[in-house]
């Protein structure tokens, strides 16, 4: 099946700055795809190149097999939902939504009819005559959606569309968007810097930093098996402990402790041990600890934070500080600042990522 969007070796340079550095990406038809990364990582630029608002400096850009890299945006079968909605302030809701249809030559009556269908779909019936300035943020966002979708684009692009909404509204919209995409079956390409958003909504996610594509995969892929330090650190919360490879099943931490860990890197390579706080266990040094040979590290508790559903401990182990998440227990059963503690983890709870600090 032809992929909806294919980028091959796409690079974008603005004078001296390389905004997008040689990325290869494939987005399947009907997929909810997210591009995730910190500000300035190139995700928006990539989106704009798919839309046609920027031209790549180099590379191949295909939409359903057609090379479109140099086509003007008004010739591509894609539509965009802009970050601040970019609704036309001088037009009412209906004229905003029917704009694309009118530009393609559809007569006024038919365009209005289709626009109204979509206004119903996004649950804004009754608001047709209002101007954007008379709408709330959430309502404006729905108009932007309707305006794009009414043209039945092959791919829908969304540039941080939920950023301006407050938390509750954002969560509602996330569910709605997901449902909408599933019903329509159209590929959605979604740009965000909020990893939680990306993880909840998307089928697959591409993580970018400084113009480079770091990893593409499902939420689980990225969370459980990050390909490098950045992804491990960016997605969720993790402890990264520097280490060196000893052999394919052992690594050595900075203080010499040998730790079990599977890796394909050559001996002597600098790597990092990634341990999610929730996969680590903690206990008082005096308590009994499973004696199955799991690596144990000893340290002192430096901070105790109550999170409601859990307790977060910060433990200082001679060369590093780790965060360990433990189930919530009554205050008396918790460790206190200054206590000596033993930290360990199950075998295979760890993950090795390449790359030095």
């Amino acid at each position, binding site marked *: 099946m032809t992929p909806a969007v294919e980028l091959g070796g796409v690079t974008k340079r603005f004078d001296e700055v390389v905004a997008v550095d040689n990325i290869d990406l494939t987005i399947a038809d009907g997929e909810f795809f997210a591009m995730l990364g910190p500000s300035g990582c190139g995700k928006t630029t990539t989106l704009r190149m798919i*839309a*046609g*608002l920027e031209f790549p400096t180099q590379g191949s850009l295909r939409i359903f097999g057609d090379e479109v890299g140099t086509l*003007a*945006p*008004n010739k591509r079968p*894609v*539509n*965009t939902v*802009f970050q*601040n909605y*970019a609704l*036309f*302030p*001088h037009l009412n809701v209906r004229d905003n939504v029917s*704009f*694309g249809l009118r*530009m*393609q030559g559809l007569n006024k009556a038919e365009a209005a009819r289709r626009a109204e269908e979509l206004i119903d779909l996004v649950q804004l019936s009754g608001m047709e005559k209002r*101007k*954007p*300035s008379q709408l709330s943020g959430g309502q404006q966002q729905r108009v932007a959606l309707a*305006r*794009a979708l009414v*043209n039945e684009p092959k791919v829908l692009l969304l540039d941080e569309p939920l950023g301006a909404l407050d938390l509750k509204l954002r969560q509602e919209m996330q569910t709605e968007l997901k449902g909408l995409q599933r019903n329509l079956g159209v590929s959605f390409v979604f740009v965000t810097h909020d990893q939680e958003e990306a993880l909840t909504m998307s089928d697959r996610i591409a993580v970018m930093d400084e113009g480079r594509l770091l990893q593409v995969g499902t939420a689980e892929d990225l969370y459980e098996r990050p390909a490098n330090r950045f992804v491990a650190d960016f997605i969720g919360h993790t402890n990264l402990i520097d280490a060196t490879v000893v052999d394919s099943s052992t690594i050595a931490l900075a203080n010499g402790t040998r730790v079990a860990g599977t890796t394909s890197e050559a001996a002597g390579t600098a790597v990092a041990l990634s341990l999610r706080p929730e996969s680590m266990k903690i206990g008082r040094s005096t308590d009994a600890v499973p004696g199955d040979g799991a690596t144990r590290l000893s340290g002192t508790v430096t901070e105790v934070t109550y999170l409601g559903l859990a307790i977060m401990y910060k433990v200082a182990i001679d060369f590093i500080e780790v965060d360990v998440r433990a189930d919530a227990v009554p205050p008396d059963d918790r460790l206190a600042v200054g206590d000596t503690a033993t930290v360990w983890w199950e075998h295979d709870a760890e993950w090795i990522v390449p790359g030095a600090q």
Partner: protein
Amino acid sequence: MATPGNITEPKGITRHLLRLNSWLVFVFFYAPIVILVIFSFSDNRNVGVWGGLTFDWYRDFADNEPIKGALTNSLQIAVVSTLVAVVLGTLAALALERFTFRGRKVFDALLYLPIIIPDVTMAVMMLLFFAQLAQWFEFTKGFGTIVISHIAFNISFVSVVVRARLAGSDERLEEAAMDLYASRWQAFRYVTLPLIMPGILGGALLAFTLSLDDVVITQFVTGPGWDTLPVFVFGLIRKGVTPLINAVSVVMLVASTLLVALSLFIQRARSTD
């Protein structure tokens, strides 16, 4: 940039002093105009002295051929120079706000000069320019020279107003239009143009007013039979003042106010953001 919070009012005596100052400023602004209107109905050859109530001066104005001729001249010149200035000024504004090109900085600077230059200097400039041209080409000073001079300073004023409007409107809107299948011309016609229209109208009003207002420049480049109303009235004032001038002034005042009201009304009716 910090989001402007409303500056809270100071307390105590400062507050009252400020209020007083503002009222005084308004009185200062409007009293002369009110007094002028009142005295235009005064039946006394001495302009500042009140005689009985009369409409004579207005009758004189209606019958005065030279004045009416000057008024027609002013209007014709203002209309033509405004139209040309609006087109050139809007194009210039669009070029500067939405494009980069070679020589942009020079153009930008050149566009500001007519705004800050004093009338007298510009009048001298145009006079000498036309005097020099007259040595090589045959032409008579009059409508052409006045219109050319007015356009020269009006372009800048129009472009400043339109630029302000353009700068405030989001470039993303034009991108959104293109994303929605509009060609460049369609994007301009259906999105950019409606959004800058208040700016264009404001610029047009400004150009029209400045053209009608102008004294020195017109005086220097005018030719026989082409005196404009302000030049004419200015001449009258220096020769010897009669209350007729009061009547003429009030008529000019009413006309300007109507013009402003009209433009505000048009803007309101279009109900843009």
